[in-house]
């Protein structure tokens, strides 16, 4: 059954249709959220919240985009909000720590290329990282990314370009070596 038929059945209160809809989309949503969160517990939490919100707002879905794109937009919104909250909380915890601890910086061995790249991806601004992960890792088109993030496809392309530029910059010395 296609998404439209499933949605109609979910709205009519069919619990098996809810499960079928979840089964049809959960893998894609989970992959995207996990790539962004990088932590199993957080990813599970964000996926659960995504589907809870999606089911509660399904009546508002007008079918202007694919259901997978609509779910992707909720997933990205929930994930970025969640990561922002966690980041804020981590900053608070750092403020509680002993300043002496913070000052104890050790010079570690130069990380390998993969570690450096992953660190550079982590350090991208959330919007850039979302576009990079969606396009280069999960294979979303710029149109899907634009619909999910509520921006124009041109903006998505520009953000991907800038994200790659930052990553190139971070890896430049590796390549020249």
């Amino acid at each position, binding site marked *: 059954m296609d998404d439209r038929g499933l949605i109609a059945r979910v709205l009519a209160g069919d619990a098996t249709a809810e499960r079928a809809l979840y089964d049809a989309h959960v893998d894609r949503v*989970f992959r995207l959220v996990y790539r962004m969160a990088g932590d199993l517990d957080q990813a599970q939490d964000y996926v659960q919240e995504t589907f809870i919100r999606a089911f509660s707002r399904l009546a508002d879905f007008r079918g202007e985009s694919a259901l997978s794109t609509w779910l992707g937009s909720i997933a990205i919104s929930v994930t970025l909000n969640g990561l922002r909250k966690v980041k804020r909380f981590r900053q608070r915890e750092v403020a509680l720590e002993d300043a002496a601890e913070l000052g104890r910086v050790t010079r570690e061995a130069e990380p390998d290329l993969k570690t450096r790249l992953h660190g550079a991806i982590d350090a991208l601004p959330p919007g850039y990282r979302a576009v990079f992960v969606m396009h280069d890792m999960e294979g979303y088109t710029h149109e899907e990314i634009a619909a999910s993030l509520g921006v124009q496809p041109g903006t998505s392309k520009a953000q991907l370009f800038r994200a790659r530029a930052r990553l190139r910059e971070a890896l430049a010395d590796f390549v020249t070596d």
Partner: protein
Amino acid sequence: MDDRIDDLIRDEARDYNEPPATPTEAMWVAIAAGRREGRKDGSIAPIVAEVPIARSFRPSVLPFFRLGVGIAALLALGIGIGRWMEHGKSVQAPAVAQAPATRMPAAPTDSGATAVTPRPEEVGRELASSASPRTPRGGSPAQFVSRTERRSGAEAAAYDFALSQHLGQSEAFLTLFRSSVRSGRVDPVAYASARQLLSTNRLLLDSRAGADPASRQLLQDLELVLAQIAQLNTAGDSSDVHIVTEDMDRGDVLPRLRTAVPAGI
């Protein structure tokens, strides 16, 4: 050159946060529970705020103290308004019954009816004076009701905001705490954070924010979890820590917090 680096980036980035197998069943159980909870109290929050793309996070010097002071100030404001309202009610109550017996000269209106315009300093004196019933100095019942509604709305908004902030902070804290327990690395700072949140939680429970039965129940369950975490210490038995997380899961504390906190908080 750029193409070469781009190829390298694509190859090496493939295993960035590589997802494990989807825990389909475990998530479905939680979603079903969250849906039941949401239906029960109708509290599933709408998506009210999207995170702006490429938003920059401005680091602040003392975010913890800023937030703490903000919440404390809001609570103080709410409690102050609440006390002021209680005082006001006892003064205003006879005003409705004895409105025709106003002592102050009334200003004539175009329609010939008398409308009394209360001066701010008079209202201040009314509210600052004793709560014993007496003849009011001015203000029609309708004016009092309108002002009361406005004050009441502002007060409720202040409490709602403080409550949302607290629940959002608690959700983030518990998410991190649970993750750190599972990875076997509980930061000692977590216990201090739990104590801070516990203090705010108790203040909210004793305030008007705790008057709503659904919020009260959530705050009480949250208090239990926070108190348990606060009592743990760095040398604590790891089984104690797991008992706390099991209690959290059993009471669906995190899913309930998420449904209670509007997106964007």
